[in-house]
């Protein structure tokens, strides 16, 4: 247990060595802390209505109030929770759905591989945002539908990456050894291959969380995201847009928060990738 802990710490120390990934990690950690501490640091509850609507920044409301007289800063802080919880969740779901496809396709090969990859190619040529819109229109916007549609949209690229990783590992000696030992296919896939391809999958997942944040934001912006009054950065931009010229802060704040989060994640992922390549 001790050993494992040290290894983890070593890996983290190495990650933070490159300045870009350190900055990225700092940004991401900052927003995670905001999400955790939202009830403590937010001055008001996110749905509480105050006296004045569309009021500029003041001591009482640092980022002003929105069109329903709600405190923008409180909504911003609480909205962090939506993003921090839902984006990783949808990526995780996407990996759980796509990884088996990629594993089987890459390891078994042959007709099954051709069939799965044909399907993946076809889905890849379907514009992702249109898939989301279609699914959300049919099922109605809700947290679960948003998460599931983003997960479904990420299946083709994840399956493809997992497949190519598996194909690299498939012909390694330890896999042949396991095969010669007479291990079952399931054992080889889960115990020999999966642990050895999981590193790159994690790096890819980090980038994908960034995409998921953008997708949740875009859906909120289009009015198809998490239904109101739950605070959500994309939804805040959508609601504040008609008043952008009168009260730019109500839209600038969530737009900047969302951008900084994705920038942080991508810087962090870049660092991870560079590290993986150097080794």
């Amino acid at each position: 247990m001790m050993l494992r802990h040290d290894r983890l710490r070593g890996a983290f120390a190495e990650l933070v060595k490159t300045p870009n990934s350190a900055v990225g990690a700092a940004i991401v950690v900052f927003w995670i802390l905001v999400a955790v501490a939202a009830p403590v640091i937010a001055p008001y509850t996110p749905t509480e209505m105050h006296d004045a609507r569309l009021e500029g920044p003041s001591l009482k409301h640092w980022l002003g109030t929105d069109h329903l007289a709600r405190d923008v800063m409180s909504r911003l802080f609480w909205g962090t929770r939506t993003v921090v919880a839902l984006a990783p969740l949808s990526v995780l779901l996407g990996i759980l759905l796509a990884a088996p496809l990629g594993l089987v396709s890459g390891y078994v090969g042959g007709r099954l591989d051709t069939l799965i990859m044909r399907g993946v190619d076809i889905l890849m040529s379907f514009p992702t945002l249109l898939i989301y819109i279609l699914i959300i229109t049919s099922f109605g916007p809700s947290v679960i539908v948003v998460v599931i549609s983003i997960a479904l949209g990420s299946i083709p690229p994840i399956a493809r990456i997992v497949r190519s990783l598996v194909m690299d590992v498939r012909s390694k000696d330890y896999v042949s050894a396991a095969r010669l030992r007479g291990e079952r296919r399931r054992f080889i896939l889960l115990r020999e291959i999966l642990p050895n391809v999981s590193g790159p999958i994690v790096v890819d997942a980090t980038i994908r969380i960034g995409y998921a944040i953008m997708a949740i934001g875009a859906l909120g912006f289009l009015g198809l995201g998490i239904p109101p009054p739950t605070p959500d950065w994309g939804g805040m931009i959508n609601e504040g847009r008609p008043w952008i010229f009168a009260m730019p802060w109500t839209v600038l704040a969530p737009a900047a928060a969302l951008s900084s989060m994705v920038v942080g994640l991508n810087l962090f992922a870049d660092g991870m990738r560079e590290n993986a390549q150097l080794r």
Partner: protein
Amino acid sequence: MTAFLLNRLGTMLMTMLVISMLVFFIAEVVPVDPARSALGPYAPQEAVDDLRDRMGLDRPAAVRYFDWITGILEGDFGESIHYQRPVGDLVAVRVQRSLALAGLGFVFMMPLGLALGCIAGITENRLPDRIISLISSIFVSVPSFASGIFLIVIFSLWLGWFPGVSMPDPDAGIFDAAKKLILPVLVLALDEIGYLARMTRVSMAEVMHSDYIRTAVLKGISRWQVIWRHALRNALIAPFTAIMLHVNWLIGGVLVVEVLFNYPGLGRLLLDAAMRNDITLLMGGTLVLTFVAVATQVLADIGLYFMNPRIRFERAAR
């Protein structure tokens, strides 16, 4: 050659067939009562029954799909529930506007993205590369709706240079029209420039490390000659493919930009259709937009085939 073209066209038809089934399934089979959801919960039952009748919802799904798809092959996309006009007519007008927007975005982003990427690739790990790489990382990470908000606030609110909405005005002169399009086109281009620059950088750096470039340098050719005559052509193949395969991302960008600037293109039409549960319009528009995406990818593939002799001979040898 003919075999290659036929293969591509076959794949394209297959793709469109599967996608049309998917679209039909998600949009019309999944909702229990598409007529009710199109008209909303407060519509009288007679109106819903009437619409059910017109949509032919009593027939089995397979028959409905077959009717829908054969209609489309004859150019009949059905009638929009909300606008009560043929979907084909509505979409035709809008798709032109969206293509114009996307085309302008392309004209803007290609030279900039490629040039930035080339500079970064040539100066790999030195200062210009560091700066360009950081900027493109940021551009890649900022979603188009956010960068659009930033640009609107900076250029229309604070500086007052360009309008923040882009409703085209048929009576406006070219100058006014251009002024309205600058911000949307810029947002669209920013969305892709980072990605394009990153792709080009990697590809350029790879080419610069290759043996044939070393040979050229050792022959004593000037640096610019090496880059211009030897490296560029090979280095640009990868980003060209990458950007064509990225057309789905571009479509997402177009949709967001159209909504952000109130530009009446296909993206906004689709979103309005989604908001109003106008299923026939949503299905038709989605199919057209997906067709544009798939066709672009096929064209890119064919273009690549002619650009890159390696692919040509590899296939011939097989």
